[in-house]
């Protein structure tokens, strides 16, 4: 139990500290690295409560794909310019009220959720009884996701697909005059189309370009 507690506090302290550092660090690339550290420690916490599937999916999706794309974009920014703008004071101060409102809202939402658990303890029992069954949590997730909630699941997938297509459409521009290579054309080219054998007459030469 002691080992469990040590691991829990290690991971949660790392998670909280790195979450603060995401917003506090001056360098955007460092922020993304702290975000990755945060994701990793959160997925370790997931694994510790026995939700190994969620933890691994968190690693694969967030750390393996989403954060790579973040880094990809952020690395392209000119960091030297960023450093001067960040924490300058004037530029960020007008966003503080909005940020405060949103964070208070989220705080109250969390209080409502936790309060619900506090005053309706039977919800906890349901969770525990589900967790104690003999099937692994990958199986139990699949059995819920693909039976009772199949439509919600499919619709959320469709929404993601639509968002992806929308992003592509928004940034798509057709450039004219760009040379494109067609593999079929390249492979199906015959010798007769590309090579011409000419008899070169003495002292006259051959004209190549017309």
């Amino acid at each position, binding site marked *: 139990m*002691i*080992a469990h507690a040590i691991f829990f506090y290690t991971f949660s302290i790392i998670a909280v500290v790195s979450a603060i550092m995401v917003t506090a660090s001056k360098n955007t*690339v460092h922020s993304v*690295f702290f975000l*990755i550290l945060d994701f990793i420690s959160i997925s370790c916490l997931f694994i510790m409560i026995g939700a*190994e*599937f969620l933890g*691994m*999916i968190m*690693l*694969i999706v967030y*750390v*393996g*794909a989403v954060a*790579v*794309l973040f*880094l*990809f974009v952020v*690395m392209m920014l000119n960091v030297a310019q960023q450093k001067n703008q960040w924490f300058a004071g004037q530029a960020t101060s007008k966003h503080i009220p909005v940020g405060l409102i949103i964070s208070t809202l989220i705080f109250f939402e969390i209080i409502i959720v936790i309060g619900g658990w506090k005053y309706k303890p039977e919800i906890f029992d349901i969770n525990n009884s589900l967790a104690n069954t003999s099937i*692994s949590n*990958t199986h139990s997730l699949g059995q819920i996701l693909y039976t009772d909630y199949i439509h919600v699941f499919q619709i959320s997938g469709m929404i993601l697909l639509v968002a992806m297509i929308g992003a592509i459409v928004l940034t798509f521009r057709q450039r004219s005059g760009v040379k494109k290579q067609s593999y079929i054309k390249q492979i199906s080219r015959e010798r007769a189309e590309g090579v011409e054998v000419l008899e070169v007459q003495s002292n006259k030469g051959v004209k190549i370009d017309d």
Partner: protein
Amino acid sequence: MEYLSIVFQEVYKILFLLVPVLVSVAMIVWLDRRVWAFVQKRQGPNVVGPFGLLQSLADALKYIFKEIIIPSSSNKVIFILAPIVTMTLALIAWAVIPFSATQVLADINVGILYLFAVSSLGVYGIIMGGWASNSKYPFLGAIRSAAQMVSYEVSIGVIIINVLLCVGSLNLNDIVIAQQNMWFVIPLFPMFVIFFISALAETNRPPFDLPEAEAELVAGYQTEYSGMMYAMFWLGEYANILLMCAMGAILFLGGWMSPIDVYPFTLVPGAIWLILKILLLFILFALVKAIVPRYRYDQLMRLGWKVFLPLSLIWVVLTASYLFYFNLLPVN
């Protein structure tokens, strides 16, 4: 006291796994160079030790005694972290590889997801190294490898789904045992080919070694590295290649299972069979390096997104419908 003995036991097990892995990484570098040389009718490293077997050790010694140069304009913490991350990620994945039904360090329920997650984290070592060097060539190499590894991960993920459909479990031992009657390489042969090529791209091996294409980018993300840090990148890279071979062996070639289930073959321990299969796949990797020219970058992206991804998705639909129609779905 009880805790301490458990910890010591685990450390002993981990060392028993990692030391052979590191030694075999050194050997595999030698094998790679030998195969490469033989294809080109050269001798390859054959001077140090019998058949040149100790060449990698000599190289490692050379790297250890070289000076580690840290560029003054680099981001020092991340610069030093990058090779450590690469090597650690390449080594921790071996924890779940089963060498027989019982010989496995961590027999976790989601073994294949763990392998996939760790191999997808491998890109960070390269990105960190490339960005922290604060230099043009490493940065270009890092950008290339980020795009490349993310693209080919997608098709590897879909291929893994194909195998999982036939197994019905994410446990690596279950995947091996499900191949008792027939290795998955036979029914899923096109997927095996795509997995092999994607693994080449995922580990930045030729013909997909664009992140370190020496003709364009000097040495890509490792341009600024020297001494032991360069050697750690190298070790991590080869450990990753071995890991991909092990993954291929487990997913498609029956893991630690003997090829035929008859008397003299079943006596051989499972670890030997797994090592033989890994070696077979690795020699294929080495042969590809020797005979295929480097891909152009846009062709690489086209191959990943427009050929492999649709093909493997179609194969998922085919596998699923076949299993469903003939009532072969593994339900437990």
